[in-house]
């Protein structure tokens, strides 16, 4: 681990620059993706990516150059490219950051169980094949797939102020999905995949529930195929954690990103219905809503000790008792806006620059178990496992869809319904939060697929949440 540190330090020390500040962020990533589809092992996809970004600050203007040439010559060339670009944009730059402090911290961070060896590729295939084979023979089951993604990342940050930050992490993404078809309609049911990922080792696969899940996931796909459409109308909505994560992500996470509020993302990812003046004043949700930036749950996807600019990460309330307190704003966004923020300056790799990202964004548990949540609903619906997401560029009007729905009448779960969708407006939706599940309903989830930024970046984010109930929500089904 961190074997390249000494070499990088030596080469960094030998770099020559006229910049008042410069830094190097080295990232090395190894990937392995395995899958078994309909009992046939698909070819394994392996990969190794390695490179560095050199960032300079020249007369208060910053620019970067990214290179995979890690030789002394290659790094020096990149540094000089960044310097030339900083000079080029000097008369056009939006920001002068000459007064922004830089980090001097030295620290290391590792994923839990990183030292434990992961099962061999052959053993992983055997596990996936076993789950695939557990899908029963039924002509209506037309497709199924068990998959496993493993990514290990080492990152080393150095700067000319003396900082050295090292991170070694392993991310695991198990998944299983089944599609059933009756000659007209098709319905899919899944476990994990885009809705689950954690840091760790084989323990992640166990926590995901992949082992032994094949038959039950297939059974649920068949149940959906036989189920009626979700009825249209206004109901209380019980969202399970694997839909809550999407709800948090889209209608709390993105609107609170400070770079959106500052306008950087208006051409692509969009803006926000939240204004800088709302922090400390806006009642974002009901008093049951408590939202944290939490880098301290070791297995969660975006747990770390420092962000990519070296800001130390701590658990912080963004919303407490429904009141909006602070944005997802990195040190630079804090410098620009004058608002407090968090350590969320993150890049997806060596070839993209850090920007404000979500990291781990969680809802704190409440006091009711699942049975109590259900029993408190007179006319409602339970929705589980996100499958569709759409929200406007200000992160306000949304429509989300799930794989699995179950009606709730008079405090009891009733029949399964297919194509459960719901729509609402973020600024009002969270004020309808009427009950929050306790720790027994709380799940640590996350996704590797959050897209944002120009140039585009896709990054891993974590969301942990209990089940939650929202009153009087507009729900509806599909066409057939």
């Amino acid at each position, binding site marked *: 681990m961190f074997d390249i540190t000494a070499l990088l330090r030596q080469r960094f020390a030998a770099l020559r620059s006229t910049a008042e500040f410069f830094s190097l962020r080295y990232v090395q990533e190894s*990937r392995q993706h395995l899958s078994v589809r309909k009992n*046939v*092992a*698909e*070819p*394994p996809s*392996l*990969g*190794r990516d390695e490179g560095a970004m050199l960032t300079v600050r020249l007369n208060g203007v*910053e*620019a*970067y150059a*990214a290179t*995979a*040439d*890690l*030789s002394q010559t*290659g790094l020096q060339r990149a540094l000089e490219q*960044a310097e030339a*670009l900083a000079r*080029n*944009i000097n008369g*056009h*730059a*939006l920001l002068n950051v000459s007064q922004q402090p830089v980090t001097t911290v030295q620290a290391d961070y590792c994923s839990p169980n990183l030292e434990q060896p992961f099962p*061999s590729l*052959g053993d992983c*295939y055997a596990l996936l094949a076993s789950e695939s084979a557990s899908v029963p023979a039924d002509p209506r089951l*037309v*497709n199924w797939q068990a998959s496993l993604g493993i990514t290990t990342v080492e990152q080393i940050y150095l700067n000319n102020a003396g900082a050295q930050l090292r991170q070694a992490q392993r991310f695991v993404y198990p998944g299983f999905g089944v*599609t059933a078809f009756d000659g*007209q*309609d*098709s319905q899919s049911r899944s476990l994990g995949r885009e809705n689950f990922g954690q840091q760790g080792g084989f323990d992640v696969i166990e926590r995901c529930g992949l082992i032994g899940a094949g038959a039950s996931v297939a059974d649920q796909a068949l149940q959906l195929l036989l189920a009626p459409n979700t009825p249209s109308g206004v109901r209380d909505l019980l969202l399970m954690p694997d839909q809550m994560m999407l709800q948090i992500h889209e209608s709390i996470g993105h609107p609170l990103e400070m770079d959106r509020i*500052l*306008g*950087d993302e208006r*051409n692509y990812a969009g803006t926000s219905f939240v204004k800088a003046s709302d922090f400390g004043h806006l009642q974002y949700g009901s008093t049951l809503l408590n939202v944290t930036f939490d880098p301290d749950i070791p297995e969660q996807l975006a747990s770390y000790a420092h962000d990519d600019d070296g800001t130390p990460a701590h658990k912080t309330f963004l919303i407490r008792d429904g009141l909006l307190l602070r944005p997802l704003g990195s040190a630079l966004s804090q410098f620009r806006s004058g608002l407090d923020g968090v350590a969320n300056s993150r890049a997806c790799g060596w*070839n*993209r*620059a850090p*920007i404000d990202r979500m990291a781990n964004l969680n809802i704190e548990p409440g006091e009711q178990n699942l049975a109590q949540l259900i029993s408190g609903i007179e006319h409602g619906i339970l929705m589980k496992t996100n499958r*569709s*997401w*759409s929200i*406007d*560029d*200000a992160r306000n*009007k949304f*429509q989300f*869809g799930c794989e699995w729905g179950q009606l709730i009448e008079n405090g009891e779960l009733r029949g399964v319904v297919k*194509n459960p969708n719901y729509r609402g407006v973020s600024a009002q939706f969270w004020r309808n939060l009427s009950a929050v599940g306790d720790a027994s309903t709380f799940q640590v989830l996350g996704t590797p697929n959050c897209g944002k930024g*120009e*140039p*585009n*970046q*896709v990054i891993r984010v974590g969301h942990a949440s209990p089940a939650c109930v929202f009153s009087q929500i507009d729900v509806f089904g*599909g*066409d*057939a």
Partner: protein
Amino acid sequence: MAYLEHFQCLVNSLRDAVLATEHFTLSYSAEQSQFIRFNHAQVRQAGEVAQASASLKLIDSGRQADFQLTLSGDSDVDLQRLHQALAQLRQTLPLIPVDPYLQLNKAVWHSHNVQDTRLPDTADVLAQIAEGATGLDLVGIYAAGPICRGFASSFGAFGWHQANSFNFDWSLFHANGQAVKANYAGQHWDPTAFALRLQQARAQLDYLDRPLKVLAPGQYRAYLAPAALDEIIGMLCWGGFSAQAIANKDSPLQRLYAGDVQLSPLLGIAEHVSGSLSPAFSEEGYPRSDLTLIAQGKAQQRLVCARSAAEFELQANGADSDESPCALSLAAGELAADAVLAQLGTGLYISNLWYLNYSDLPAARMTGLTRFATFWVEDGKIQAPVSTMRFDDSAYSLLGTQLEALTRDRELILSTSTYDQRQTRSTHLPGALVKCLTLTL
């Protein structure tokens, strides 16, 4: 970096290294990109990215495995990395079962396309943007530089594609928060053409100055400008034409391909690679074919990668493994550009749509939102900008029973996507007049 020589060096080394029972394919991707982000018409973030990668597939004894490696540009270092990858794949193959869907393309083909047009000087571009955007709230990104794609196989196939291009994608914001979207992309930067494009966008801002019209949910006549239609077509590309998705009942167009439904007879969709910015060969090493996907509203060919070809007993036709179009072309219609507003009469003029997804995938029912310069039109005249609205409708309706006309003029839209790397995808399509668009929120 001399990309072609770099790639050839790797290929030659691999050809020497593989054993008699082994075969390989090697795909190559490289770019030297300049990325300059703008906010409030000033540079928010700027950088250079030099990146290259190779994807090595090793085949032996009916098994195959892939390894993607980042290349440094230094031949000695990269040859060492390539041979490490080869060694790892050799260790991996015995651990996996024989692949029943392995299909080798043994064809020996050659393709060479280099478009090394000179790109503009960065300082000049910055100066032109600064001058043109004076007094404007401009936000966006300028991306420019060479892009390379290569492919070689142990059977002797060799393809090379290299093109210099730029893509300036931006929005102009009115003080009231409304915005217009614009783009200037291509291979030859023409200061006059850029100034005109910027001026056209600036002129649209005047319409946004009018009081915002708030619409109620309901059904409306609508004109979808090419960029808006591109979003709907883009959704259909999520497995719509994929042989695997159609077979696995995971395609939004599975009912069309099953012959259960059809789209408007006005609709013709083709994958038209020849003459596009995309390489003439797939990542898997198949020469790409021009394909008719939909003709007169009925399903025709589908996109077939090598694996699907083996599994579903089809003919591979140059699709990448995701079986998504790379150069989609929609046939033009008869509606003249200057007749669009008159024929729309009263309804919505929608410049762009945003963040589409499926409400019911097998029914091709999708939802999404208006974004940028959407206007309310009465009696053929623009009345007011419209607040953001959500639609929820089926493609079988929008591009089927409710499709009234397609425009005679088409727009070539070059992908602005820079996920992982700058993309070369494009769509060439008209605008669409629809009799009924369902707004829900």
